């Protein structure tokens, strides 16, 4: 065993409370055969007869503060935020990287926190929706979403806002998109088509898309 390998503590029970266990195991067959999102599967069935794996230590820098955690290695970054740190602003929508509700910024880049393990991010910085405002002063993207009514039910909103912030940073760095006409252009202008393509990983079932686009344009300093 090398020094990078986590030491097993076979007699330590898992400290993770796996919630939603054995969620709706009956009926999943029918669900999978339709084109419905697999949201109902949530965290997936957990085999209660299996021994718990050894827990692992991880330290995340969340919204500027260090958070040492001891977790079951199965713990996704999303579940670490929500279930271990009570940071429930990041939402679990599909839990399969299809909806974007769980979007957070890791080392400044937007990712789906449901499709990565907390332990893979030891020592890295994570920014969640809770880390954007300065006291009572909303982040400009948050304020723009309020001003432009960029949501209805609000479930996707924290993911939309984190994603939009990551998207503007990518755009400033010159990242092209699928709809960018000229790949050699230094930085594509953020037209509505560009914003929609770059935000396609965030689904809004209330379809507040026009207002989300307006909020993003305002934050980018463009006419809405």
């Amino acid at each position, binding site marked *: 065993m090398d020094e990078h390998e986590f030491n097993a503590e076979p007699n330590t029970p898992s400290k993770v409370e796996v919630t939603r266990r054995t969620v709706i195991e009956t009926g999943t067959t029918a669900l999978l055969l339709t084109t419905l999102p697999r949201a109902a599967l949530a965290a997936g069935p957990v085999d209660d007869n299996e021994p718990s*794996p050894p827990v692992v230590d991880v330290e995340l820098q969340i919204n500027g503060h260090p958070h040492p955690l001891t977790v079951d290695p199965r713990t996704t970054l999303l579940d670490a935020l929500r279930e271990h740190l009570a940071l429930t602003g990041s939402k679990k929508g599909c839990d399969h990287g299809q909806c974007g509700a769980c979007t957070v910024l890791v080392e400044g880049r937007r990712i789906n926190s449901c499709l990565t393990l907390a332990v893979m991010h030891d020592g890295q910085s994570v920014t969640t929706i809770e880390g954007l405002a300065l006291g009572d002063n909303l982040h400009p993207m948050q304020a723009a979403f309020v001003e432009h009514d960029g949501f209805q039910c609000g479930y996707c909103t924290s993911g939309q806002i984190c994603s939009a912030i990551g998207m503007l940073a990518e755009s400033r760095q010159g*990242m*092209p998109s699928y709809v960018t006409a000229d790949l050699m252009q230094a930085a594509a202008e953020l037209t509505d088509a560009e914003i929609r393509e770059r935000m396609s990983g965030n689904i809004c079932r209330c379809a507040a898309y026009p207002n989300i686009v307006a909020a993003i344009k305002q934050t980018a300093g463009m006419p809405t």
Partner: protein
Amino acid sequence: MKAFTYQRADSTAHAAAVAFKPGTKIIAGGTNLLDLMKLQVETPSNLVDINRLPLDKIEDTRDGGLRVGALVRNSDLAADARVRQRYGVLSRALLAGASAQLRNKATTGGNLLQRTRCYYFYDITKPCNKRNPGSGCAALAGFNRIHAILGASEHCIATHPSDMAVAMQALDANVETVNREGESRAIPIAEFYRLPGRTPEIETSLKPGEIITAVTLPPPPPGVQIYRKVRDRASYAFALVSVAAIVDSTQGRIRSARLAFGGLAHRPWRTATAEQTLTNAPANTTSFNAAADAVLHNARGFGGNDFKIPLTQRTLHSVLAETTRT
């Protein structure tokens, strides 16, 4: 998710040695593997995290090509100035895949090794020879709209889902690997993927424990490069049909053409005879139809995916018209 132990690799040789053990899986971006683990399609007992290995560089090669480290993220590869300038088809293919969040996480090596999105592969209550060899193929008589029309077998009609790999097929990329003895080799991408045959569970020519370290791109061939993807949504959907094309033409005559197709088969698809048909041919409908016939003459639909045959023919026609427009 089934329980597993987690460890971090400190070298590629170490990762290869650990990965050789049954039940062990390498994790890089994890965007496909964790999805499959949540559904218990994949049930590794041990995960080896290679994210901290120094495989995240894009380097110029002596022959004027590029060497892309296995851990280069899809977004970084798509945005690299050299890729945008010289390998536009690759940049476009990457940007056509997944969402920005997933591209920020997904790696070059992981993208090559992602699994099919066949519904029945994902549904552990259904027979699937790829997931459970010998259990049968539920897609044959099932809902097979997204399935293969070329190179399929009675055992599996799944398609490979990658866009990136289709562009790499057109570019004649090589997949560099290392094994647990520390020996490296370069596998031409044309020999990297397998057809399903009787063993659809074996998808690549990688041997147990062999790990992808890089993908090398030869100097780009002359010609216009485009990637055309036809799908059910304008964004964030897998290809029904895609075409990576590199076509060199002048004044209505094609000098050379490379064509790779996604969404049609168990691997990115190339047909040498179709490309030969276009060499020194006039850029007109007769030539385009001859090329499509060469690609599709062994095509076979399974009901739900019959539409892919004319869709491929029309998409190819459109791509060739665009790339030969002067």
